[in-house]
């Protein structure tokens, strides 16, 4: 009986594998619609959803088929598995925001070997694993903006703390490294006392911030580098009655922080125009596939975004944008 099942299983799998079309390499040429596969770091993340809004716009404009998929679990291997699936599906371009730089490069390189074009956005892979990196701002740029803004708000002296998503999040760790480098180089009178993870949960960020405020009575600023942590930290500062005494800055969406910015709890929210990032990613992806964007280009015509500089293999959207009291109402994402 047992052998029967084993044989039946092998037989059915073999049957389905062999009686079908063998894999042909990337389709999509000869007038068929281009398929662009867009991957966020994780689904259910409001930041990437706002990027997708711009991506949808570009997809409609360029007439490409947009696939949007991403991991729902934190396991690092999930992004690779999705890319493997896309390779088998035979998409034309993959645009990925990379959770694990080296890990995902394994899969992206395989995609390039099969003739699929690869670009990265928001967080880069290894340079040899993709054709271009759509850079909203370099990690150094983001870290420096955060650190400089922190220094500006605290007169370049005093204690501050960082709240990150998790201790294993790759791009946040890169920002942390650059922040600490900038701190050491330019602001000797400032001290980073702690870096706490919040598991990407607003409520946990609030608890962590409450503890930090009390454990470090001389704390002057909280820097929240994962987007749910910005409102979480702000709420903690507000409940502690330290509005204005302890500054809050971070990387987050204007819509989630509007209230706190108006109340003076959060001083600056740093981000970029996520919709433009999504738009640029898909436009560049489509142009890469149809040959309008070639490696070695110095400049790229990004449609409604104008002509953008290409530095090496990075297309730079611009500098990080600082949302504060004066301008936050102009944005609806």
């Amino acid at each position: 009986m047992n052998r029967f099942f084993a044989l039946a299983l092998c037989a059915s799998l073999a049957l389905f594998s062999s009686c079908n079309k063998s894999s042909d390499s990337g389709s999509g040429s000869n007038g068929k619609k281009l398929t662009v596969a867009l991957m966020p770091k994780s689904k259910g993340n409001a930041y990437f959803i706002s990027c997708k809004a711009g991506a949808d716009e570009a997809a409609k404009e360029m007439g490409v088929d947009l696939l949007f998929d991403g991991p729902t679990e934190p396991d690092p291997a999930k992004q690779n598995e999705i890319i493997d699936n896309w390779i088998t599906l035979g998409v034309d371009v993959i645009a990925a925001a990379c959770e694990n730089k080296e890990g995902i490069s394994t899969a992206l390189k395989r995609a390039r070997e099969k003739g699929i074009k690869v670009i990265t956005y928001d967080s880069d892979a290894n340079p040899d694993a993709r054709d271009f990196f759509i850079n909203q701002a370099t990690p150094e740029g983001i870290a420096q903006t955060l650190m400089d803004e922190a220094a500006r708000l605290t007169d370049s002296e005093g204690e501050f703390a960082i709240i990150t998503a998790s201790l294993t999040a790759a791009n946040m760790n890169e920002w942390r490294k650059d922040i600490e480098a900038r701190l050491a180089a330019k602001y000797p009178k400032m001290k980073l006392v702690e870096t706490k993870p919040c598991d990407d949960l607003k409520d946990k960020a609030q608890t962590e911030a409450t503890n930090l405020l009390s454990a470090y009575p001389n704390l002057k600023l909280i820097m929240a580098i994962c987007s749910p942590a910005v409102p979480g930290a702000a709420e903690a500062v507000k409940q502690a009655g330290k509005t204005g005494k302890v500054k809050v800055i971070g990387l987050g969406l204007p819509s989630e922080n509007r209230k706190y910015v108006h109340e003076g709890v959060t001083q600056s929210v740093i981000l970029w125009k996520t919709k433009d990032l999504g738009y640029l990613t898909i436009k560049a992806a489509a142009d890469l596939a149809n040959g309008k964007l070639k490696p070695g280009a110095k400049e790229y015509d990004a449609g409604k975004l104008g002509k953008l500089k290409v530095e090496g293999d990075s297309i730079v959207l611009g500098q990080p944008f600082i949302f504060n009291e004066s301008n936050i109402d102009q944005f609806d994402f």
Partner: protein
Amino acid sequence: MKKYSRELTVAGVLVLLLLVLAVTAPAFYDPQPMLSRLAREAPTLILACGVALVMVCRQIDISIGSMFAVCGVCSGLLAAEGHPLAVVLAATILIGAVLGAVNGALVAGLRLPSIVVTLATMVILREGLRWQQQGAFINLPDAWQWFGLSQRGGQFTLIGCAFLVLVVLAWASRNFAGIRFLYAVGTNAEAARLAGLRPQWMTFAVFVFMGALTGLAALLNVVQSPQVDPKSGTGLELEAIAAAVVGGVAVSGGRGNLWGVFAGVLLLASINPALTYLHVEPYWEKAIQGAIILLAVIFDGLRNRPEVS
């Protein structure tokens, strides 16, 4: 005294930790952060009490984290539409009870194992919510935070609410037949049936009750900030079950004291702040939490060594 040695040990460890903090980091006892922390733990206490009763009945419910998130989002959406507090409270508890009833029907009605049923419902609810919300926060109307009371007032209300639930359930588990019968069912369901109880109905009821408590806990969490995060509740089932276990509730049913659960909740909730106040690196948190759970259960095992080998 010996009967409560388990719960007293947990309380003892908690007191020891609190003493250490009093000496090395007295800032831990600052009233405002302490109040905030207690208010944040109020939902966890309610969940831990509920899951303790489920475990007393020899079942388990690992879907409470996902139910919590769903109830939280529902209450947020209702509040944003402008319904009054009473309506939202009733609706949230009802939604929780209905979700709990699904678990209960499958476990008690179809006699399916609770760990697998609640594993399935946990995944279905979590993925369904993620699909629907896509990570978007829900903004609450201004009057909602702290039930419209002041911050202090609201925090005391929340803590009082959770404590009330604890006291009522603890009293009931000694004096109210309905809850005492759960212990009977958990010890030996067949004997309970022969004694005239109806184990299947009681099991169903305990899951419905768990769901209702989850709804209440979710609302108590929602009023603490002006936005609802659909991801809240992640990992909460682990916290609640760990707190119950550390507090002396036996996963094999029939044994457990809600005051022990209370001590368990406080102990596990103190680890993370203790690390911050003692300036210990945050990456030790999970390891310490795991070690405490193991120590608690080893202590149990050594204490209850069977005489017959």
